[in-house]
């Protein structure tokens, strides 16, 4: 089997899928990329058994067909060192010898039998659901929720993003039980109700590869696996099993104290003031009075403190609420719109963050639990 491929073209495809390979592979073969040549089409696969990423390249010069597993690390490192040039891959299927022949030299490695590479999990056709999403919608949904996922061995469902499809809308949800994000798309509708929980790793792989994609992503899933088929890449992954907790029930409905504030102003103020927060708690306090917000923090251990005023629209009760500065920054960083509405009831109950100017097809809500002083 022989083929000619551009060094930089191959590198960019390999880099995108190489993130699927685990630093400690569960099987030695999974330290390899699987190369499969069929006609003019080269398919390359990387996997850690839980997540598999596949990419295809259309080549002009090929000879023969077949599969071979090539060691990933040395291949990636070598490709990074080549200036852009055509590379001739010459593979002996008998000896598994791989020669990468350039104009000036030859780089030889030994591959492994491609047949040993684990097969892809199959979607159960009877239980399968299919949906088309724009790459942009999928990317936005993942970006907005991924930061709020948990690291919880005891409740694995919390470590993923819930994808929920209904005839009315589609919802992305993530929560680490300190914060919760619910991002709804009113322009994605299915004629059935279905859901799955996407683990963190495939979610972040998608986050990395989706910016290179446009057009539609075909998602098909059953109760165990999901396929995300994009134009240049395909991601196949095992889903988190179990039921996601009923997230709507924990979103408080009655929050009389509403404040409208410039998101970037608040984010920047928070960035300055939070440097003065206690390193143990990272507590920042928001004090709200008539059309004024004061953000303050102090670290008694080092005798440092800071406070800064912000103008805002507020005519609710005078109140003070504490948040962990990092969590609050995450929320402000990931919410859309220049002005945001923060809906509060009392210092011991969740704060709700929503965009002030809602876009037509989006419904975005972020919830953050406060910190209680001497609770």
């Amino acid at each position, binding site marked *: 089997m022989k083929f000619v491929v551009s060094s930089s073209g191959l590198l960019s495809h390999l880099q995108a899928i190489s993130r699927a390979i685990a630093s*400690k592979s569960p099987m030695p073969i999974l330290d390899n990329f699987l190369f499969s040549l069929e006609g003019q089409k080269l398919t390359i696969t990387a996997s850690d058994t839980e997540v598999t990423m596949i990419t295809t390249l259309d080549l002009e010069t090929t000879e023969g067909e077949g599969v071979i597993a090539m060691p990933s690390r040395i291949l990636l490192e070598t490709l990074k060192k080549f200036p852009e040039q055509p590379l001739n891959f010459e593979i002996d299927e008998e000896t598994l010898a791989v020669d990468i022949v350039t104009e000036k030299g030859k780089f030889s490695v030994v591959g492994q039998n491609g047949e040993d590479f684990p097969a892809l999990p199959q979607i159960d056709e009877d239980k399968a659901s299919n949906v088309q999403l724009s790459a942009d919608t999928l990317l936005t949904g993942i970006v907005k929720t991924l930061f709020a996922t*948990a*690291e*919880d*061995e*005891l409740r694995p469902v919390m470590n993923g993003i819930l994808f929920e499809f209904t005839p009315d809308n589609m919802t992305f949800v993530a*929560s680490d*039980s*300190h914060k*919760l994000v619910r991002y709804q798309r009113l322009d994605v509708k299915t004629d059935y109700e279905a859901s799955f929980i996407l683990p963190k790793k495939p979610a972040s792989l998608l986050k990395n590869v989706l910016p290179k994609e446009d057009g539609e992503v075909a998602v098909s899933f059953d109760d165990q696996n999901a396929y995300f088929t994009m134009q240049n890449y395909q991601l196949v992954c095992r889903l988190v099993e179990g039921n996601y*907790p*009923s*997230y709507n*029930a*924990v979103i408080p409905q009655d929050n009389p104290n509403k404040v409208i504030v410039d998101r970037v102003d608040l984010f920047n103020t928070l960035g300055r003031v939070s440097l003065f927060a*206690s390193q*143990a*708690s990272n*507590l920042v306090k928001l004090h709200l009075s008539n059309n004024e917000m004061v953000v303050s923090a102090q670290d008694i251990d080092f005798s440092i403190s800071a406070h800064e005023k912000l103008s805002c629209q507020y005519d609710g009760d005078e109140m003070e609420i*504490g948040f*962990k500065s990092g969590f609050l920054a995450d929320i402000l960083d990931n919410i859309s719109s220049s002005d945001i509405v923060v809906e509060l009831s009392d210092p*011991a109950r*969740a704060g709700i963050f929503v965009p002030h100017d809602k876009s037509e097809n989006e419904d975005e809500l972020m*919830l953050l*639990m*406060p*910190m*209680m*002083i*001497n*609770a």
Partner: protein
Amino acid sequence: MDAFFASIEQRDNPSLRGKPVAVGGSSDRGVVAAASYEARVYGVHSAMPSKIAARKCPGLIFVKSRFDVYKADSSKIMEIFRDYTNLVEPLSIDEAFLDVTTNKVGMPSATIIARDIKKRIKEATGLTASAGISVNKFLAKIASDQDKPDGLFVIKPDEVLDFIESLPVTKFFGVGPSTARKMHDLQLFTGGDLRKADFSMLVRNFGKSGIFFHNIANGIDERPVVTHRIRKSVGIENTFSQDLSTRDEMLTELRNLEKGLWDRVKRHGAYGKTLTLKVKYSDFEQITRSHTFSDYVTDPKLVHQAVIDLLNLADMEKPVRLLGISISNFKEKESEGPVQLTIKFD
């Protein structure tokens, strides 16, 4: 503390006041954890099967135990103790030895300190305590039982021998029903009998404890008040009679260690975040590999999985003579700082 659990229940529920109360399950297999003084009049005492307690005391009111509340009161009390001395040795949830020979408040008299502590406990918890003051732990403990409830009893140095003289042996530390029977058979009924008894006879009959009985009968108890060291880790390890060379052998041994570890974790309530695997090879080289979980581990299955993962990180080329696993990184004491609230999912 006087009838600690029962007094807390009576404090928090006025309708129980002045009535015989037993904390504990009322079912057939239930046991009384604590009885109020009103119930004690009928002979109800802790560790008594609830069935018998109910028979002894017809209107006995059973109340479910609320350990969280008891613990909260207990830590308030222990905090008060520590205002007076760092030498506090908790004996149980509601009693402790305090060495106030030198104290933080510069009070010359243990009796004044005891009065002060009792007053502060009353203010902080609404409960009464009984204090016993004497020259050593044995006598202080005995003294604390002399004047209950709300008592304060002092055995002064020159009263020690007189006090012990008539003290029944059943009141001695380490004398349970069977030792008491044995002592009675030997015509030893009081501290005076013990003091007069032949030392070698005591050792012959009671072994090491005989020395202890002899000493305390003479008012000698040199045991210091030891503050419980803070436990940093809970672990278990085993050196094998033959070195292990296969992964399967190691996994089998680790499985046994996991069970032992988990028993200890449960016994000490020592739920930590970090699991450490220790491997000593046949050449005595020793390595440790550890994994820190995001939360306190309360499920032994997680330990099992992590042990397997950690074993995979260890070099398996050399035979292994010892394997050990431990859990550390325990929950810190309730901090006074701000607390991040969590979403309560169903």
